[in-house]
């Protein structure tokens, strides 16, 4: 069964304290690995798509990487405004639904 597992469930950081969020996946025929950010009371907002192992994407303080088994979202020198829930999702075989993980809730304090 296809599955996406995110860890940790929650992460508390001090402003400027870099860290990484993990997304492990078992999705047959993975066509893409997606990262979304979700703020309280809002729908998820697209961040990145990664298509193949070794690929990296960057946006401001965020960098996403992909291996054959997992993806990491690296957060460099985070700020309080980076506080949110980060969702990972895998796209399997064509015609199947995106499989989402349960998310990692990040809290950054000043």
């Amino acid at each position, binding site marked *: 069964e296809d599955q996406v597992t995110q860890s940790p469930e929650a992460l508390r950081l001090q402003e400027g304290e870099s860290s990484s969020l993990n997304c492990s996946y078992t999705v047959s025929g993975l066509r893409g690995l997606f990262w979304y950010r979700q703020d309280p009371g809002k729908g*998820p907002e697209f961040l990145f798509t990664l298509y193949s192992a070794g690929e990296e994407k960057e946006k401001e303080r965020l960098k996403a990487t992909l291996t054959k088994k997992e993806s990491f979202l690296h957060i460099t020198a985070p700020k309080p405004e980076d506080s949110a829930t980060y969702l990972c999702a895998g796209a399997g075989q064509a015609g199947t*639904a*995106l499989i989402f993980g349960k998310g990692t809730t990040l809290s950054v304090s000043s």
Partner: protein
Amino acid sequence: GAGVSQSPSNKVTEKGKDVELRCDPISGHTALYWYRQSLGQGLEFLIYFQGNSAPDKSGLPSDRFSAERTGGSVSTLTIQRTQQEDSAVYLCASSHYPRQGVNEKLFFGSGTQLSVL
């Protein structure tokens, strides 16, 4: 509009009542999805519409759930005879690209928080 619009933002109903949730996707987006997000759970796929094709209903949890999309735009998710376990946030998303494509960047609405008492 500029984004995906969902209404109502909050809905409180009594067990056994029917509810209708509305989604207005981004203009020109042919793909439309409904997801359910329960506390502590990942997003659960419900249904997918693509243009004039037959919808993929494989994620609907029971026959109490149904959805339609009129004119390739607005969509309504209907839950009949609501149960307490139906309480969740119902999210709608649209995309310019069909699901079969490589790019599945989805634009989500803010959701409808459904509470069944």
